[in-house]
């Protein structure tokens, strides 16, 4: 029983960066822009969030910095794809390369300046440590996994819920979804397509960035690593968008399942159940493929990619 809840706890910890990345990307894809730069934006956020935490010891400044720098990355992407109509896939991939390179270069400079691997202070670490609410956190088993998590987890879930309400229940959300499905129709009905695209791509990018900061500050305990820490989580988030069928609420469950995939192999007693490591590494992608096949067979309009996602909107070609 203990093992099960320890496993669940570890899965929640591992799923959080994925949740940030996924809901950020959902926001971008919902306005019709497939941003493959999630990985790069997470790297940017990982660096900026770490640097701010390292210098200021402030959780809020660190949060804003990670959001901010990743949002700048997303702004570049938005400018290239929305205004200049560059190919979305290529631009996204470029953003990934750019984000990784930039944070490694500045990360290296930070290491050189510190004369060794920089670390966040104990003061800051205490701010991002798992919270402890008297009585509630002490409830056997579920206390820890509901009331004993670090603040990022609650922020991630809150963002996912807010985005769900925003996308599905508000008029602005409806407009936004209209852009993703048919920008020409949205334009004709008086929605400012480009402005909406910009805003949502940038906010989405910033959210991805927080996920990166979570990785450098919580998952590796606030120690800057020579070769970075994000290493592929952004790509899993892109797959997770499909898995959660472009729904931020489903993304909570989806990222938890994918988080389980990353921690599963450390909690399965492998002296009893022998499964090759490669199998666990393959799981997220196999599951995504299966979900993709199942959803395309069901042909449910609600659960598919926005119709205009990946296609740039030329107003003049209506």
């Amino acid at each position: 029983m203990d093992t099960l809840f320890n496993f669940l706890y570890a899965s929640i910890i591992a799923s959080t960066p994925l949740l940030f990345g996924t809901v950020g990307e959902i926001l971008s894809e919902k306005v019709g822009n497939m941003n493959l730069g999630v990985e790069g934006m997470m790297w940017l956020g990982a660096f900026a969030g770490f640097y701010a935490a390292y210098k200021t010891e402030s959780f809020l400044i660190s949060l804003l910095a990670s959001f901010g720098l990743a949002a700048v990355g997303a702004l570049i992407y938005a400018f290239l794809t929305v205004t200049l109509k560059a190919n979305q896939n290529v631009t996204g991939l470029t953003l990934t390369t750019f984000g990784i390179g930039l944070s490694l270069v500045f990360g290296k400079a930070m290491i050189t300046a510190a004369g060794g691997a920089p670390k966040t202070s104990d003061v800051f670490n205490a701010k991002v440590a798992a919270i402890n609410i008297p009585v509630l956190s002490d409830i056997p088993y579920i206390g820890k996994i509901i009331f004993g998590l670090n603040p990022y987890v609650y922020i991630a879930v809150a963002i996912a819920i807010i985005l769900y309400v925003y996308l599905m229940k508000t008029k602005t959300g409806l407009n936004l979804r209209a852009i993703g499905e048919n920008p020409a129709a949205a334009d004709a009905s008086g929605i400012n397509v480009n402005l909406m695209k910009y805003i949502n791509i940038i906010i989405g990018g910033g959210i991805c960035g927080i996920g990166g900061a979570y990785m450098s500050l919580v998952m590796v305990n606030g120690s800057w690593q020579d070769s970075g820490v994000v290493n592929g989580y952004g790509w899993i988030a892109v797959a997770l968008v499909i898995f959660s069928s472009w729904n931020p609420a489903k993304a909570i469950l989806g990222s938890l399942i994918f988080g389980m995939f990353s921690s599963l192999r450390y909690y399965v007693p492998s002296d009893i159940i022998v499964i090759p490591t490669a199998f666990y590494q393959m799981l997220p992608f196999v599951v995504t493929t299966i979900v993709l096949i199942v959803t395309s067979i069901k042909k449910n309009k609600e659960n598919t990619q926005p119709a205009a996602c990946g296609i740039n909107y030329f107003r003049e070609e209506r």
Partner: protein
Amino acid sequence: MKKSVRIIALILALATVFALVGCGKQTGGEGETQDTTLAEGQTFAPIPADKIKIGVVHITSKDDTSGYTYAHQKGIEEMAAALGLKSEQIVIRDNVDDNDVEATKAALQDLVDAGCDVIFATSYNYMDAVEEYAEKYPDIIFSHCSGYKSNGKNFNNYFGRIYEARYLSGIAAGLKAKELGVPIVGFVGAKGSDNSEVTGGINAFALGVQSVYPECEVLVKITGEWYDPAAEGIAAKALIDAGAVVLSQHCDSDTVQTTAAQAGRFGVGYNSDMTPSAPNNHLTAPIWNWGVYYTQTVEAIIKGEWKCENYYEGYNVNLVGLSPLNEKAIAHGTKEAVEEAQKKIASGELFVFSGPLYDNQGNQILKEGEKLTDEQITGEINYYIKGVRVL
């Protein structure tokens, strides 16, 4: 139209994902089998110390502050200082991906063109490219770390008995666990039992633990990657959940140490002194002193005494060692116990892998009085010894 775009986009996304999974970074020259056939002597003419030029190929940045490349670079710098070489006599090509044959060859060609007399290639997968270049340029000495190939003329390999240091670090870990009264120690390994270096290292560590705390169990988690800080953190947490009080590692980041420290557990690092990462919880770390090999080799080349022989040494020449024991964390009596064992290893009185030795399935590996050979240590340890449990 839109459907095809969608499909293409997906394929692209997935392709990239798989590509990323495929090119998981291999930081570390991790040896397989060591070819110990000795060279047919070819001698090279002496080269004046102020004329010699040394080339180095590193897998990651020469400016790393810890880890595998850091240890090699430190060795190169120690060699240059010991022999009074100027910085322009050392030519470095770093961040050369060892899975990229073309990049490896380009780096080697650069060093050849720069007029290097000897080229050190520090990572395992450089091996085949180095072999090719050694044939092509018979007047240049090529020295490759952690592989098993050599040509008896101008191409040798070098590596060391890091397992000796792991054994000693096991003593420190075992004493700490004993002091805490919990017979569970953890180990995060990068590779599974198909990798003899990691597996042998785990076994040596476990033997060290058991030498001071016989009933102590060593639990192992395998990440599958040399460098994956997030996964190393999850694995360390899982070991803590399983009750481990001291965590050791054979992987490249310091996440295992920081995770242990945060949970109030203790740790044994690797490659460099990780005490700065966990000031109150890190006990010690097995480290490399590559300067020993580089100094000896370059000195021999300068004197014209270099012979093409494979190099596999350990505590006897201080090629391996332990980082300073952390007084804030170690158990009482650790220093004495480690020093005593260290003397015995250096003098040859204690050989880590000697019988009787059983694997964790109950098979006898070595009988009383038997020892593992160097070939077996570098290439054939594919079992875990008694007391080790892979979880």
